[in-house]
């Protein structure tokens, strides 16, 4: 791994060069909050942001995506035969993605890339995307990445990590993809011997500024059924929940989808849309029976999935990277930190748990 130095005066020119081989996507402020957008020529990512409201997972996993197309023309020999749409997977670079958001991709990959099933749409998009991370020097009060398997300087899922260092960025080149990108941009100044140390120092400082955390050490050892039946946890939280899809849609690690067919003119489209376990229709059977018929069932599902089923199935921590979006965005303040700590400390004997004010 090497570290290079990118002077901020070389930044814009480098980005322009990158446009020749990459579509650039980055955080920009529109209306009154930041969002990831495709950056048209001349537009730079706003590297002075805390995080976007909607996670950049849509870059690889769009909210609505055509997965198959077919002809609805009865005279066409391929009438009603579904085929994959021709789609160009151009190289993309997400510039300024936060480490927690980048860490969500390998996590989601466990679902989309298994021995038995490989999701071609997700994988192609993922493989053609270069992730240029931006280390967090000013974490939000709701960030708890350090206790959720990520961190403000986490570089495990990035191709390149940028560290803002005043008039320049220190850039850790982490993968071949990252190397290709810096070469394409013409950034190659060696950062010198003390760069690694400087990064480590800033990293320790940033980590110490993460104020909130979740306790997860007991989750794997808890009995699944005990947690499922822990009404002390679920009843009060479920009361407030309005079963909207905000938490799932802003979350970088929620991966569930629904498939819908639409016909327009002579074309049929099979579209994959994000779905949410908060919606009653998510589990509605054709018979009319709904195994998760109440909002308590649905709220419990979301947290059990992230903090118990996933933990047990993949043995790789929780299905959360601690970005804190759901905590900030939930219209009724359902706080995953509070629920995680309750699940972690649940005592089935006394049916009690520690309620921390997160």
């Amino acid at each position: 791994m090497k570290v290079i130095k990118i002077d901020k005066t070389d930044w814009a020119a480098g980005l322009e060069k990158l446009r020749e081989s990459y579509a650039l996507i980055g955080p920009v402020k529109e209306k009154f909050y930041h969002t990831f957008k495709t950056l048209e020529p001349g537009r730079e990512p706003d590297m002075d942001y805390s995080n976007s409201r909607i996670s950049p997972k849509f870059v690889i996993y769009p909210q609505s995506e055509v997965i198959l197309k077919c002809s609805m023309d009865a005279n066409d020999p391929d009438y009603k035969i579904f085929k994959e749409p021709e789609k160009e997977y151009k190289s993309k670079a997400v510039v300024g993605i936060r480490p927690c958001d980048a860490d969500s991709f390998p996590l989601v990959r466990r679902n989309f890339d298994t021995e038995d099933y490989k999701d071609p749409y997700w994988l192609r998009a993922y493989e053609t995307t270069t992730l240029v991370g931006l280390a967090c020097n000013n974490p939000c009060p709701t960030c708890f990445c350090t206790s959720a398997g990520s961190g403000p300087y986490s570089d495990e899922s990035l191709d390149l990590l940028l560290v803002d260092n005043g008039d320049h960025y220190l850039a850790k080149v982490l993968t071949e993809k990252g190397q290709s990108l810096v070469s394409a941009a013409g950034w190659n100044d060696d950062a010198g011997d003390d760069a690694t140390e400087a990064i480590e120092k800033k990293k320790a400082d940033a980590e110490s500024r993460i104020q909130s955390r979740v306790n997860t050490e007991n989750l794997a050892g808890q009995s699944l059924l005990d947690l499922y039946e822990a009404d002390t946890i679920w009843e009060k939280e479920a009361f407030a929940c309005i079963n909207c899809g905000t938490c799932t849609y802003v979350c970088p690690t929620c991966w569930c989808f629904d498939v819908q067919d639409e016909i327009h003119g002579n074309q049929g489209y099979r579209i994959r849309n994000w779905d949410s376990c908060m919606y009653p229709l998510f589990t509605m059977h054709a018979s009319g029976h709904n195994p998760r018929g109440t909002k308590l069932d649905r709220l419990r599902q979301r947290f059990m999935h992230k903090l118990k089923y996933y933990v047990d199935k993949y043995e790789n921590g929780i299905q959360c990277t601690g970005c804190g979006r759901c905590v900030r965005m939930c219209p009724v303040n359902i706080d995953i930190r509070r629920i995680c700590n309750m699940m972690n400390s649940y005592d089935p004997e006394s049916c009690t748990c520690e309620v921390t004010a997160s």
Partner: protein
Amino acid sequence: MKNLMEHMGIEPERLHFSWISSAESTKFVDVATKVTEAAKSLENKEKKFAKTKPKVA
């Protein structure tokens, strides 16, 4: 209904309400003609609320 449709940008020419008895064939013809003409006068305008193909990735 009409008010809100117009409020969000549907041209008034596109939405008509009429009460026509089954015995009023001439009124029916008259209304149908007027409705068609009114809508046609907007021919150069962009169609609204018409989905031609899904805007998705």
